[in-house]
Structure formats: structure tokens, C-alpha cells
């Protein structure tokens, strides 16, 4: 494995790191591009993008993780292109860069938070993308400017985990709970509920159209979600029956990383995220599909979540 700092893009303003497999013969002629998780630079929280890039390079993929303009080390754009358009254009710059320097023709896009949106959008508009792996995909673009993110994650924790935990109830009734935090979380949850209903109904038709487009083009789409991420429920609601049908046809996969939080803030979360990504991308390359399916069968168990066919990453 070899890492190289690179500069590319229309005005030579995008900065990234290419991780090449150590043996050129192992190159699979498939590039993976990692897209900024929100405003965090290309290393990502917990340095998890570095781990993902190195693991993928170890499996034979060329990996590029770079910063969108204005994020990390990349320069701010000089035009007024909005982020949702500039990010797609810059992802295509990254595709062109790998094509030009590594002669790669097929691409897998992977990103968390807003990077998940960009991976999805670029997959819709660029036929060179054979697979997109959005991680904690937000149904709307408003997510990154959310001033209440932490309270919403806490609310999600209360609802999905603490609610079913005897110790939490004992704390609540013995005065040991953080009542102010509980109040803020409930208030935040109520607000989110109100705004997400509006978002879901407005985003739903476009989402359905895009999912059908990707399904018809044979693009592999894998939604990865942390179990503690509120966006999972929103995707299910926004995707509705169309998403369910595409999941049943196995054109789309929706996988939940159990007990992980939004930023994969434990080493254990990170390890299982890397395993899940490896298992998915390895099936993209036909020569490796058989081998990868064995790994998948060994590591993961299929189950139903609210009527959708999903898979859940298990401890290996």
C-alpha cells in the first residue's frame, strides 16, 4: 500500500490522498472515492476514512479521499455554485483524476452525512459510478446545518436504547438522571418530528425517481446506517413502498450497523463499518464475488426491519 498527496480539479484546488494497492497486479481497475463527512476533512472522525482507505487498498482497490472546496485543505471556490452542485462536479473531477492517472473506468462512491448525499447524487448523474455506499444518508440537504444535532442523537439514544434499559429507569426514578438533557432531547425530538414530516413529503417523489433510475441502470446501492441514527427511519418513510420493492428485488441494500452511533465514535463501531464496506465492495468485482459471498454469509445475518429486507452487521 502506498499513499500519495495529490492536487487536482479544474483550478488545481482540490487536495486529497490516493492510497494505491501495494502490488499493481492486484489492482481491480475499480476506484473508490471517499467523500467528506459534513465539514470534517478527509481523515473523518476517529480517522475512520484512513482505516477504510487502507483496508480497501489491501483488497486491491485504488482509493482517493479528498476535500471538497472550502473543506479541509482545499481552496474555496471562486464561483457561486451551491454546494449540492459543486460537490457533484468535484466528485466528477476526482473520477476524471483517477481515470487520467490510474486508467480506472469503474467507480465506487462512499461518504457519510452530506458525503452520502453527494455519493447518491453523483451516482444518479454519472454512469461511471457502479456502486454508491451512502452512510447515514440524510433524506434532505438541511441536515448539516442542524443546530440541534447532539440533542437529536441523545433523543434517539433514549428512545432506542435507554427506554428498554432497567438501569436507565432506575436512574430516572431515583433522581440520578440528567433531567435537563432529557427535556432538551424530547423537545428536540418533537421539533424534528414536525420538520421531518414536511421534509419527507417534499423529498419523497424525487427520491423514488432516483432510486428507480439507479435500479434500472444496475448501479449497486448500499445504504449503511448506524442503529442510533435517526435518519434511518426517515429513509424508510421517504422511500416507502418503492424502496421496499427495490430492496426485495435486491437492487438496493439497506444495512444497519448495530449499536453504532452517527460518527462511529467507538473503535468497535469503526471496525464493523470497515468490515461491512469491505464485504460490499468485494462483491462489485465479478472475480471476487464468490469469495465475498462466503465472507458475507459468515459474518452477517439477514433479518426483517419494519418490512424491509435488511442485513445487520454482526460481530465477526
Amino acid at each position, binding site marked *: 500500500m502506498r*499513499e*500519495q*498527496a*495529490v*492536487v487536482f480539479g479544474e*483550478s*488545481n*484546488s*482540490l*487536495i486529497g*490522498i490516493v492510497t494505491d494497492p501495494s502490488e499493481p497486479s492486484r489492482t481491480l481497475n475499480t476506484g473508490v472515492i471517499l467523500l467528506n463527512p*459534513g*465539514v*470534517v*476533512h*478527509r*481523515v473523518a*472522525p*476517529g*480517522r*475512520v476514512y*484512513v482505516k477504510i482507505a487502507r483496508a480497501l487498498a489491501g483488497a486491491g482497490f485504488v482509493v482517493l479521499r479528498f476535500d471538497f472546496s472550502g473543506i*479541509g*485543505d*482545499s*481552496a*474555496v471556490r471562486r464561483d457561486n455554485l451551491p454546494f449540492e452542485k459543486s460537490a457533484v462536479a468535484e466528485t466528477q473531477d476526482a473520477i476524471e483524476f483517477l481515470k487520467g492517472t490510474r486508467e480506472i473506468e469503474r467507480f465506487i462512491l462512499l461518504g457519510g452525512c452530506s458525503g452520502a448525499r453527494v455519493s447518491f447524487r453523483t451516482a444518479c448523474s454519472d454512469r461511471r459510478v457502479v456502486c454508491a455506499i451512502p452512510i447515514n444518508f440524510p433524506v434532505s440537504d438541511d441536515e*448539516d*446545518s*442542524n*443546530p*440541534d*444535532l*447532539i*440533542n437529536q*442523537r*441523545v433523543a434517539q*439514544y433514549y428512545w*432506542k*436504547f435507554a427506554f428498554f434499559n432497567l438501569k436507565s429507569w432506575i436512574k430516572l426514578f431515583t433522581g440520578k438522571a*440528567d433531567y435537563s*438533557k432529557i427535556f432538551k432531547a424530547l423537545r428536540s425530538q418533537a421539533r424534528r418530528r414536525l420538520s421531518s414530516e414536511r421534509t419527507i413529503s417534499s423529498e419523497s417523489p424525487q427520491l423514488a425517481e432516483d432510486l428507480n433510475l439507479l435500479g434500472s441502470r444496475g448501479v449497486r446501492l448500499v445504504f449503511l446506517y448506524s*442503529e*442510533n441514527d435517526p435518519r434511518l427511519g426517515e429513509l424508510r418513510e421517504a422511500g416507502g413502498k418503492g424502496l421496499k420493492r427495490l430492496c426485495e428485488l435486491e437492487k438496493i441494500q439497506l444495512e444497519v450497523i*448495530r*449499536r*453504532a*452511533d452517527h*460518527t*462511529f*465514535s*467507538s*473503535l*468497535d*463501531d*469503526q*471496525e*464493523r463499518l470497515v468490515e461491512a464496506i469491505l464485504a460490499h465492495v468485494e462483491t462489485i468485482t465479478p472475480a471476487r464475488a464468490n469469495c465475498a459471498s462466503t465472507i458475507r454469509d459468515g459474518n452477517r445475518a439477514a433479518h426483517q426491519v419494519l418490512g424491509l429486507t435488511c442485513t445487520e452487521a454482526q*460481530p465477526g
Partner: protein
Amino acid sequence: MSPHNGITPFYFGLPDKPLFGCYHKPRAGRDRQCAAVICQPMGHEYINCHRALRHLASRLADAGFPGLRFDYYGCGDSAGEPADGGIARWMKDISAAISEIKTWTSLSDVCVIGVRLGAALATLTAVQNGGFESLVLWDPVVEGRGYLQELLSLQKEMLRFRPKPIRRKCLSGFIEVLGFPLSNDLCSELEKINLLQISKKPARNVLIIRSCQSGDEGALEGHLNQSEASTTGDLLDIPKVWLPTVDGSLLVPNKALQSVVSWVSRIHA
């Protein structure tokens, strides 16, 4: 490889253990006779401070100071795993970064700027290397034991509001802080850090930036003055940029950046 914002990313150091750095080219016509090296904090603090320190390096470059931001071994984009790092290793990395910027610029004077643990490492490196010309310590970790306690408290607080990790495997030889491993050896090394015990002056001129009243840093200012380093303290009403924010944003405290740039410009006029 030089993008239009004047930042050049590159790898340097040992071929088998390369370090990642970003060279900030000074604005044309404002060349100064001093370069800046920025020593970042560690772990989650590195992630949270990245934006502020990139802006700091750009502001210094605008004022005519070429600069180098770099990642320690096992951190950020550099080679290695976090568990492979250690105080001695990272001090060598600071020395390597200083040599690198001298090679890039042919300048002999270097101002070293450190944040949190980066500030402590810069100070220790300075003492070991016989002192720098100037040193900026932004909310330095003065006493390693207290720093470790802070990290553990933060991890405990984080675990209160997230599902417990499935495996919960006892990482033998490690503890975990917000997704970063800290080896037991590193913890022992951190516990030994105490900048109030350094006996030599780390630099001719020192600026200490504080975002809050803290006895440790106030004591450090007094201690450094005793060591004959000309020390300036600047207590600023700015957020603790190394901590996670409520909305996930990354802060750039303008007052701190201004303070550093104007002090460095004055010292190296």
C-alpha cells in the same frame, strides 16, 4: 503541485514512515525571515482543530510567513497507526518538520506554534533542542495527568448517551477516547508531562494563548518568565476549539488567530 490557495500537500520524513504535511506559501512581496511550524493536537482534538489551524497557517502566509502544518506519525494522513505513536516519536516528528521547513525556505529562524498536546510536545522538543527563537502555546497541556483525566471524563460522558459498543472487548494495553486508542505506554508517558518542571527556557520569546482562566497556564507563564523566556500571556474570550460542538461545526476563533499573527509579526518584524 501548487494549488491556487498556496497550499502544497506532500509527504516527508523517513521513507518507510512518511509524515503528511501542508506547506503554505507566503504571499508574494511580504517575505519574512522566519517560517512557522504548526504542531496540532491529538485524537479528536486534532479533528476539531484542523479548520482553525489551516486558517491560522493561511493568515500567517498572508502576513509573509511560510508555514508547515503536519500530522504526527500514526495521526491524520501520516503513515502508521495511533497506537504506534508516543511522546518521543512525536517530538522527533516536530524536529523533522522544522528541518523540512528550513529546507523548503532556506530560513534558519522558525516559530513553532502548538495547540494543546501539540503545545506541550513543542515545548519539550524546544528544551531538548536547546530552545527555539519563538514559541506560541495555545491552551497548552501543562500537566499530563490532568489532560488524561479530561480525556477519560469526555469518553465517559460520550458513553452515557450512546449505545454501549457490542464487542466491548477489553483492548489489552489500550484505552479508548472518542474513537482513538491510547496505549498504556502512552498514558504513562502523558502522566509524566509537567511543563512546570522544565528547567531550561524553551524559546527566547513565548506567547501563551488561553481560552479560559486556568491556574496551570497562569503558573506556566510565571515559570517560563523565571526561565528567562520573554513570555506574554493572552487571555481571550474564545471557545475551546478542540471540543466537539453542539451542531458538529468546526470553529475558527478569529481573536486567537489575530493574536498569534500580530505577535509573530511583531517578534519577527
